[in-house]
Structure formats: C-alpha cells, structure tokens
C-alpha cells in the first residue's frame, strides 16, 4: 500500500495496535473514537466475543482532513491479543505502516508482554519485514493501577524496549497517553515519507 499518493494528494497510514490479550488496545481505540468529532471518524468496526474480547480485529478509520494539501487518513487496527489468534494477528499486521505495542504494566503480566513482543518480531520477520525499519512505539498501559500491582515505566522499559523506541505511560480507559502514543507513532510513520529510515530515539515521558 502506498503511504503517500502525491498525484491524488492522499496520505493513508495503517497503524496496528499490538500487544498481549487484555492489555488495552481496544480501549485505546475507544478513547480515540470518543474524542474525534463525528464527521472525522468512520464507524468503528469491532468484532468482539460475548465477553467483549476482540475476536478478530478493531478497525477505526480516521479522517484527519486536509493537511498541507493532502487528504490524510489514519486507519487504526488492533489485533486480538490471545495467543491462539496467531493467524488473525498476521493478517492484520500485513501492510502496517506503524505498530503501537500496548504493554500491560501489571507485574504478573510481564511474561505475556515479552511473549507478545517476540510474537510481533516473529510475525514481522515472517512477512519479510526488518523489524528495525518498522516504526514502533510502546505504551505502558494501566499505569493508574496501584503501585504494588504494576512495574514502573523504567522497569518495563528495561525489559521490553530493547530497541530503544519511543514509549509512553498510559491509562487508556481515561485517555492518559492515548493521543501522545498516537501522535508519536504518526510522526514516526510520517517521518518515513521523506525516505530516510526513522531514527529510533527514545522520547521519555
């Protein structure tokens, strides 16, 4: 998929929210959905199970309007986090311009985070994509939970952010860090427009 169509003056970015099950990917999209004026968003497509778990994927098209003369659209997807939806994850990941990794900050979930991160890299590799070239931002979600239940950002970063990508602390239910994360990944993706590989610089909170 071409990111920028100069002739038609369109920019379309596909951004995939990745992460372990119940880390808050869909919550991110929900928050964005609720903040966007009605005329700017498409209907959010969510295929969920009876218990509100993402079964297939969420899809939220966002029309950012005309920016610098370009009709700019963001397509936000989430993958189902559960381990057994591997095929769906691969499908959704295809053609992604950028990935947001939503990590669950709960101490007991650290293994799932690591696994999911490895899964992301494995899937990218399988699609022949060099993970180092894919714009990636990490969100450490659920930082609002009691301190004793969660690991703090620097701890998580030591474990998960071995590539030193931008990261944000988040509370997706209340919206903390949601737009910061989206902004961060969008900028990384757009930076690739100029052709140069996106430099990976850690942008701390």
């Amino acid at each position, binding site marked *: 998929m071409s990111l*920028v169509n*100069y*002739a038609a*003056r369109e*920019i379309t970015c596909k951004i995939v929210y990745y992460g372990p099950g119940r880390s808050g990917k869909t919550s991110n999209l929900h928050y964005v959905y*609720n*903040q*966007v*004026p009605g005329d*700017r968003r498409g209907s959010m497509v969510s295929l969920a199970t009876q218990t509100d778990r993402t079964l297939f994927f969420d899809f939220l098209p966002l029309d*950012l*309007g005309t*920016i*610098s*003369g*370009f009709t*700019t659209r963001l397509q936000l997807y989430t993958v189902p986090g559960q381990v057994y939806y591997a095929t769906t994850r691969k499908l959704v990941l295809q053609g992604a311009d950028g990935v947001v990794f939503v990590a669950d900050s709960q101490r007991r979930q650290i293994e799932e985070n690591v696994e999911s991160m490895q899964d992301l890299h494995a899937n990218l590799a399988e699609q022949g994509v060099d993970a180092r070239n894919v714009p990636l931002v990490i969100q450490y979600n659920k930082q609002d939970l009691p301190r004793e239940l969660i690991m703090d950002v620097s701890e998580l970063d030591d474990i998960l952010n071995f590539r030193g990508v931008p990261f944000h602390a988040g509370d997706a239910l209340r*919206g903390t860090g949601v*737009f910061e994360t*989206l*902004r961060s990944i*969008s*900028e990384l993706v*757009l*930076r*690739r*427009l*100029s*052709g140069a590989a996106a430099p990976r610089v850690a942008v701390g909170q």
Partner: protein
Amino acid sequence: MSVLLDGRFRFDNYVVGASNRLAVAAARAVAESPGASYNPLFIYSPSGLGKTHLIGAIGFAAKQLQPDLVVEYVPLDDFVDQLHLAISSGQAEAFKQRYQRVDMLLLDDVQFLTGRRETQSEMLRIFNALQGSGRQIIMASDRPPSEIADVDERLVTRLAGGLIVDIGLPEYETRVAILRNKCAEREMTFADGVLEELARMPCGSVRELQGALNRLAAHEALGERSVTPANVRSIIAAGRVTPDLGRAGAVATDEFAGFISDIAVAVAQHVEGWRVRLGQRIAHWQAAGYRTTMLERTLAMNEEADVDALDAAFASGVARLEQLEAQAVLLDPRLAGLDVFRDPQHIPEAEARVEQAIAAQNPPPGPWPAFTLETMIAGKSNQLALRAAEATIEAPGVRYNPLFVHGGPGVGKTHLVHAVGNALRRKAPLSGPVACVSGSQFVDELIAALQDGTVDRWRARYRTAGALIVDDVHALAGKERSQDELFHLFNALHSAGKQVVLASDRPPSEIGELEARLRSRFDGGLVVAIQPPDRTLRESLYVRTLQDRAPDAEPGVAALLAELPVSGAAEVESVIDRVLHAARAAGGAVTLSLVRRELGAGGAATPVSSPAVADKSFLDLEKIVMEWPEPDGRVIEELR
C-alpha cells in the same frame, strides 16, 4: 498608490501555517510572475483570516519586483461605484480603458457581485481583455465562486478558471506565531506562556485573536493585575459576549485538534517538498482539464526533479495549446475542447489540426478552371513543355519536381501551368488543394498578412496545399522576404513529395536578384521553355480562333495570317481583333483581300510580333531530343 499597496501588507509579515500554506505559495508565485502561473487567482476564506493582507502582499511584492507594473487594488464596491459614475457621466468607455491598462488587478470582496448583472457583464469584458493579454487578476472573497449567488455562469467559470485557494483557521502554532509577530510589531511583552495560553483558546479569526491580544495589552497597561498564563482565560472570557469556554466538549475536541495540528507539522516536515509541489501542479493542470502524463511520470521517479522548470515547460505547452485552440475555435467553433488541445505532449498534432482548420476555412487560390490541357494546341514550339506537363500530371511530385516553365509573354505558360493545376486537382488523391498563385499575388498576400499580423495563418494556407503552382515567379525578384517564404514553402512541400510548378518569362538563371538557394532549387527539377509558336502552330491557333469568332471567314485566311510571326496565343487574339475590327468597318466578311490589306497597311506601323529571345539551343532541331527513352528528371537535366 492605493493604501493597501503601501507596504504595510507584505509576505514577510504574513505568518504561514498549514492552514494558509497553499494560498501563500500560490500568492508568491503570482507575485513573482504575474499572468504566468495562476490566472485568475481566487482566494477565499471567512473574514479576518488575512485575504486582504495576502492580496496586498501580492501587489506590493509584484511592484517591488517590477516597479513598472501597473497594479490596481479595488474593492468590488468601489469598482461598482466607479462604474456607475462612469456610466452616468457617459464615460463608460474611459472606464473600460482604464482597467484594460492595468497589469495586475486586485479585486477584493468579490462576493458582492451577487445580483449585479451590469457589473458582472462589465467585469466579464474587462476580464477577457486582461486575461487575453496575459495580465494577472487576483480576487478575494468570503466564499468560493460557486457559492456567490446569482452570478452569470460565464463569469463563474471565468472566476474558477485559474486557481482557487482557501485560507483556513490558523492552527495553534500559527496562532502563536501571529501573536508573537503582533507583539514584536507593537513592542509589547507578556509573561512567558501568556501568548501560548491565548493561542490555545478557540478563536474564529485572526482579527478575534488580535482583539484578545489588545485586551490583554490593555489589562497589562492599566496595571489592574499582571497577565499570567493562569488568568488569560478569565480576562478574555470577561470581554466576550458569548463565552464559549469551559464546555466539556471544548477540551475534549482540543485533544484531537492538538493531535491534528501536530500531525500537520509532521506532514509538512516530512513530505518531500518537490513531490508536493509537483502533485499540486498536477492537480492544478488536471483541474484545468489537461492531460498530465508528462508530469506524472516524473512523480514516479526517485530523483528529485526541477519542479519549477517542469511546470514552466508544461505551462508554456499549455499556453501554446490555448493559443492554438483559440485560433482553431475562431475558424471553427466545433473544434473547441478537442482532445488534441489538452495534452502538451502532443503540440505538433494540435498545430497540424489548426493548419487543417485554416486550410479548410480559407483554401489557397486555385487554378483558373478555363485553362485545361485539352484547349491547348500542341506544336513543335511547345511540345516539350506539354510532354513535361503530362508527365508531371501522371506522377505528381515524382518526375519533375519542380517543373519550371519559361517563355516569352503570351506563349501560353499561364495556360499550361493552370492546366496542370486543373489536371492535378481532378486527379485524386492529392493530400490538399492545388494552390495556384501568381508571383505578384504571392507578394501582395504576404504584405497584407504582415500588416494584419496573420503571417502564420497565411503560411498555413499554403503549407496544406497538395500541390503548388506559382505563375510569373520572376515577380519575386528582389523581394527577399517573399523569396524567403517561398523557399520554406517550397522545402516543406517538396520534402513532403508534393508537386511544385513554376512559370516565368525567363529561365531561373536569368532572373535577377533571385537568391541562389531558390535558383538552385528551381534548377533542380526540369526547366523547360515554350518557344513562340512556329508556322504550323500559328495556323492551328488561327484556325481555332477564327472558328470561334468568325466562322464565316474565307478559307485560307488562317494560313495567310500564320505567315506573320507572333509571340504567342495572346497575340493571335489581338491580330484577330484587328482583322475583325477592319472587317466590321468595311461592312463585310473576313476575306483574304481584307486581311492582306489590313496587315499590309498596318503591319509595318504596328509590328505584330516581337521575336521572343529564349533558349536558342532549342531552335536547333538537332539539339532537341524528341523521344525520351527514359524521361527522368535527372537525365533531362544532364542533356540540357
């Protein structure tokens, strides 16, 4: 100079942001090369966002670059007032002329055109005049042309014909920049963060923003309380009639708006400038209805391209096409909007189309239909020329090209070449009409075309000819420009395999003041002479003429008349005239005795013949080859 153009409104004090970048880029382009890029330029935005500043800046910048430029700024209302005044004082023509002298017309508040029919038609006329001569029109309005109610359709398309750009609400960064600019201009200072806080507040226009800034400044000056980022909102809110702050939605929307404005900055930073510009140009040209394959190909390439040069080349192509289309439409309105006028890659085709139209509209003069080969009487003196003519008709453009016929006056050159023309015309297929023109007519037409500035059209008339015949080509002697034109015309036709036939009273080598390049080309085909008629031919001519004009003439008159040498068929006619006149005077028929008396008496006093001196070699029968084994142009040339 208008107040607006006094330099208060400049590009360097106009803050550029994502919301107005396109408008400013277009404005700069127009200021730098008026009339060339976007004409007309139509800028619209809600009030208070800087339209007037921008068009003022265009006028000022254009004036700076070209001090001689006549720039006129006029709000539509003034324009209407002037028009009414002019009409009421009977000066409507002067009004029109005044505006037609303007190089750059800046028209503000165009939305007031609504319903003003007479102003609209006047404007349409002025626009046509200005645009037709490549002068720039810039308009500002609070709405796009399509939304200005009750406006003449033609005017709307005219308004929309160039580039339409809008100016949006400034985003946060631009608002901060505008506020900082204003502060610097008026030497005001505020505590850190105050301007940023003010910029964060929703505002409907730059004017509103200025108003808010003024309010803060007033507060600061009164010293009631110092302005801090924390109390900015309360100070401004106190002054607002309908404070729209503090709504739950406002903050929430802000988060998304902030996101958008950040993204806008990122997009602006990272999209490749040249591709954006090229994309804009492509969109512009496509909107104008042109095919842009040429530019799109460049867009797909990896290396950075020189967009300005490409665009300039494309624009000049478009200009040429417009010119061609206008020319074509003048000739045939059905040609308007033809595909061939929409692709700058195919200008030669468009040019060919116009030439066709010209030729169809105004074909070059043709041969006189009365002259045919059948009415030409063959004799020894002209049989060579006749055979060459027949060979030419048989294979036009192949055998003898050009065929150059020369001979004294009245020997029948004109008859022969026109007859060739008629035969060629009947002979299908020829790629165009047979152009048949005398040398002096050629010169006169060229002079007339030079006078009217229609040389191109005149040229095209002949270029489309399927064959060219120039009688009395010696009339071009000493006329350099005509020779030049004939030379190019000759080359164009000759290289396209079209037949050229020329006639003159002398061979090319004896035409004085004839350019060598033309002479050598004339010599390059077959040069053939027509001699004054010999006795046999004279008799045949007299027999035929007498049959027509004096069928009751005594037998033997023709033979008697033929004893006297004449220069050609024309003289035969005049001899017959004399004889008939004498016969009428005598009140009798044409008899041998009458002829003897008449010619014997007047013969010496009015010599009926002046022996034409021509190529003497042909007088020697031994040197004439009557049967040509392989009558090929080259062979004849060598023999001659």
